[in-house]
């Protein structure tokens, strides 16, 4: 199933993803209603389950607010593809299970292009342009967390191991 690409530039900050006045909300679906509200008001109304966010360098810079990847998760975005990610945003996304792909060819993807992604292999297919891009796979250490279902599950296993011998 292909999804549509929503194209963003470099240095998309967490205030752009979810403005500060909505940080009183803790639910992904509620946050998604305000995603990118200040900088791209049409996103929240038109994003569809399975769409993609495609961006340039340093996506997610700024605040440590997990509300930003949560809003993206709540919007049903299948995966964020960027040339690079800001550090805390990368952590937060791994921890809550928002798939990220670091792809140097992200610039080749245009607004509205239809994409198909194989997350395991990190292969991105641009259906509109009939092109294929590869991406940097997540390191093994982090795949352990992803395979556990996120940091909550990963940590629960550690707690249970400790308490039950």
């Amino acid at each position, binding site marked *: 199933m292909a999804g549509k690409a929503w194209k963003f530039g470099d240095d998309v900050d967490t205030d752009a993803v979810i403005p500060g006045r909505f940080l009183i*909300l803790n639910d992904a679906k509620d946050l998604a209603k305000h995603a990118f509200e200040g*900088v791209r008001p049409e996103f929240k109304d038109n994003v569809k389950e399975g769409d993609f966010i495609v961006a340039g360098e340093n996506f997610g810079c*700024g*605040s*440590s607010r*997990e509300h930003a990847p949560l809003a993206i998760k709540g919007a049903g975005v299948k995966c964020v593809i960027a040339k*690079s990610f800001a550090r*805390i945003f990368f952590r937060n996304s791994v921890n809550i299970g928002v798939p990220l792909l670091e792809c140097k060819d992200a610039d080749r993807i245009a607004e509205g292009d239809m994409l198909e992604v194989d997350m395991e292999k990190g292969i991105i297919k641009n259906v509109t342009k009939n092109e294929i891009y590869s991406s940097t796979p997540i390191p093994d250490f982090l795949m352990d967390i992803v395979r556990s279902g996120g940091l909550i599950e990963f940590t629960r296993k550690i707690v249970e191991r400790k308490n039950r011998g």
Partner: protein
Amino acid sequence: MSDKQTITEKIFSRAAERPVKAGDFVLANIDRAMTHDITGPLAVEGFYEIMRNEKEKKVWDPDKIVILFDHQVPADSLNAAQNHIMLRKFVAEQDIKNFYDIFEGVCHQVMPEKGHVLPGQLVVGSDSHTCAYGSLGAFATGIGSTDMAAVFAIGKLWFRVPETIRFEVNGRLGERVYSKDIILKLIGDIGADGARYKACEYAGDAVKSLDVSQRMTISNMAIEMGGKAGIIEPDSITEEYIKERVPGYKLDTDLKSDDGANYSDIRKYDVSDMPPQVACPHNVDNVVDVTEVEGKKIDQVLLGSCTNGRFEDLKIAADIMGDRPVAKGVRLLVIPASRTEYMKALKAGLVEQFMNAGALVESPCCGPCMGGSFGLLGPGEVCIATSNRNFKGRQGSADAFVYLSSPATAAASAIKGKITDPRSV
């Protein structure tokens, strides 16, 4: 392979209980964990989710956790009030003694001020400006709420030990030029992602000569170039600051980067002739000499935040303003970073001076810096702020414009009603 280590590698080696180098993935022991009223509720939910099958749902060590309310204080909405209630309940349930309610101040000021940060510690906070504590020689970094939930449960967290960029800043700052100008210069130079995933280490005689307050400003903003930490080798100035809070504290003299340690980059600066710096909308790395934006009309001035809301910052601003009033049509918001800093300003007569000048002096909190509370900007308005971010929409309308500067430049601008070189007033 050299056994020489950066201060960052030394701290992670202790925290991971094995010798590590940059690039290693580790599960490290946390010395101190800080959360606040914005990112705390999600961390608490995550913690109970981790512990859902456990009979005893207790945090790993209540004495190593610090919880503060600073972003939305006093509660400015029903949701904020509910978040506060939830965290107060968690504090009581978990017997967390280091809890600071709505009156104490901004997390990044209160943490060092109350002696919760020591040189050499691995400190995490669910706020991106946690890197501020690098000013005291701790490795301090911002994390998310789910990260914090894991820390609450097991006292450990995953890291990739970062490479280090060493900034050697030498020379003597000119009159009315401060550490805020240094850090803006560095960020403008390297760019918003120039230190991504890396530890920033600030060295050189210009850094060594700064007091702790000025050091906090440059450590605070390491994140604005993508840095994981903004660390300064602790010295006698650090030791004095800590000793006032932790009696008997003695500095470990090995707590520094070894000669010959491996850096990903060493960048050298001489700040002797550097003019005051200003970051222009809408990116922190959009930095120019103040002379390039002089005369830009402003509507609001924000003097405060975890970057520049200490007594020393307010004093710099007050000295520049003297008995001159805030320019007609301009709003000056003064928000001391903590109750302690507020009281110092009060006793020194600064609060009276600011109020006589027509300023609004607020109780300690984050204020409009993160845009969730009062003091927001409307469409088309222009603000000059001593805070750390000027992202589009951060302080209110996405059609407003935020410039960042030192307290000196902000104060000079407040009395002139336009962006002003503090050396000219």
